[in-house]
């Protein structure tokens, strides 16, 4: 369906990534946000706090990130689309409730504008070291979806997509920005509302009495109802049956947790999204995401000028990881080069999936700034030399 025009600021703008993400949320139909402002994500809540009340929505500044990360889920069960936004230290505090959202299949969006860590680290400077936390940060087995914008334009469009994926698959979706894309200002084109594809909530068509809140459809995802609509609605983080009632035994655990994992794993090829460039015939493939993919592209252009056959794969959806595609490439290329603003996170996933068929060369960076393209170039040159 098309977007609700009341939330769509159609036109050309000169915006930073944080403001653009806010506009993406409003275009997607987000009408509730909770937050505890933290650098470098503060501009998102500043803008959404000013914009939401004018379209019948609400922003609540909570006492901390733990509260913010559960407040949005309350709004979702009351029928709204909702987000919260934070950075590393707050993201850590939100982990338990992200697990609750996975267990209760609560469609909601968490934005993490990554800064240098661990702990309070580098509040005003970029990092990409929360990628594994996004995937594994809460306890227990679960799956999430994570997206990585590389520009303010994508901060807009991928926030829309984050909401769409959350609604379609009923999972918490992480928008993994970084300080650089959050604070950089570029042209952002917001299309007319009728050209923005928005996925509505999977409202049940069953009458009260017949509806079961956790009865999966053919795609393994249950339809929803909201509190107060006359349906029987029981939501708990305990292992539960299709009615939502706690059932604490192995059989119920297998049925429920297997499904919330498999609904993403078995559909990973549908959810996964990468952007590839000159992969055919490439000796070396550079895999990157977020701001690093732009810096890496400069290095790739320099490498191509030297005559090296180098392709690129940009992870637009980082989780679920594009396993099948990387596995396929591993038997064709001589090496993968993975630059990231951390000491090795997504590179571990590349290495795992490549399974020894092609070496994975990490180009680590502790964060605080972006890579020097020359350093990535050197890694590409070395990898290509090893390949010959």
């Amino acid at each position, binding site marked *: 369906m098309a977007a609700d025009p009341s939330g769509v600021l159609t036109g050309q703008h000169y915006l930073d990534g944080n403001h653009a993400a806010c506009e993406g949320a409003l275009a997607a139909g987000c009408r509730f946000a909770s937050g505890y402002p933290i650098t470098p994500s503060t501009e998102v809540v500043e803008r959404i706090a000013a914009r939401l009340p004018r379209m019948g929505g609400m922003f609540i500044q909570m006492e901390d990130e733990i509260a913010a990360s559960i407040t949005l889920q309350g709004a979702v069960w009351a029928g709204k689309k909702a987000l919260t936004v934070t950075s590393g230290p707050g993201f850590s505090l939100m982990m338990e409730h992200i697990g609750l959202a996975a267990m209760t299949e609560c469609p909601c969006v968490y934005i993490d504008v990554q800064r240098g860590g661990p702990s309070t680290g580098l509040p005003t400077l970029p990092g990409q070291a929360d990628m594994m936390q996004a995937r594994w940060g809460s306890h227990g087995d679960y799956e999430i979806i994570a997206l990585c914008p590389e520009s303010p334009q994508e901060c807009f469009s991928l926030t829309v997509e984050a909401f769409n994926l959350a609604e379609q698959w009923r999972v918490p979706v992480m928008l993994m920005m970084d300080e650089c894309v959050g604070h950089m200002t*570029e042209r952002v084109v917001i299309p007319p509302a009728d050209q923005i594809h928005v996925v509505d909530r999977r409202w049940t068509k069953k009458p009260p009495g017949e509806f079961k809140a956790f009865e999966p459809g053919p795609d393994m995802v249950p339809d929803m109802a909201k509190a107060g609509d006359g349906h029987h609605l029981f939501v708990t983080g305990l292992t539960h049956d299709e009615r939502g009632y706690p059932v604490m035994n192995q059989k119920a655990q297998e049925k429920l947790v297997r499904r919330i994992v498999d609904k993403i794993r078995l559909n990973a090829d549908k959810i996964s999204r990468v952007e590839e460039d000159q992969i055919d015939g490439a000796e070396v493939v550079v895999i990157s995401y977020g701001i690093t993919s732009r810096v890496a592209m400069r290095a790739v252009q320099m490498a191509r000028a030297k005559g090296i056959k180098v392709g690129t794969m940009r992870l637009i959806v980082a989780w679920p990881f594009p396993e099948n595609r990387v596995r396929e490439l591993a038997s064709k290329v001589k090496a993968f080069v993975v630059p990231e603003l951390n000491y090795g996170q997504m590179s571990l996933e590349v290495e795992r999936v490549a399974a020894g068929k092609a070496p994975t060369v990490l180009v680590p960076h502790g964060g605080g*700034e972006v890579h020097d393209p020359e350093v990535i170039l050197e890694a590409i040159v070395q990898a290509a030399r090893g390949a010959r």
Partner: protein
Amino acid sequence: MAVTEIKFGGFGGQGIILAGIIVGKAAALFDNKEATLTQAFGPEARGSACSAQVVVSDDRILYPYVTHPSIMVLMSQDAFTRYAGEVAQGGTLIIEEDLVQPAQIPNGATVFKVPATRLAEELGRRMVLNIVMVGFFASVTKLLTPEAVRKAVADSVPRGTIDLNLKAFDKGFEWGRSHPS
């Protein structure tokens, strides 16, 4: 592929960041170019030296930061001391002439001077000095069309102040035409 790196420096409160936004917006929205703005965030950017950096290009910008600015706009002595040495060889230095006394000019740069604060005061509002500076910038660099920069000024200032700011732009632009380097 023409890439121009620009750095604006001054002290917090002079409207340095807005000057950078106007130039970036003029390029990206009204002059059919690409423009990426980055800025220094953090406590050091409030009150003391602060900077805005703009990369303008005919093609897609990959690396977002300014490394060798060919144009620098410096509006305080502190900013000159801190940043002037970064100007590219043979680049352009644009300075607020009452606030910046350059001891020496680095890297063979060409210097353009404008009394932006005084010109703003003549318009009755000292705070439009950054827009005077933007007008002067447009005039001496010819990087962007004056129409695009004027549109970006009108699009970036509070509604009730558009006329005043356009006058400030014109005043700076005129100064550039009548006072070459």
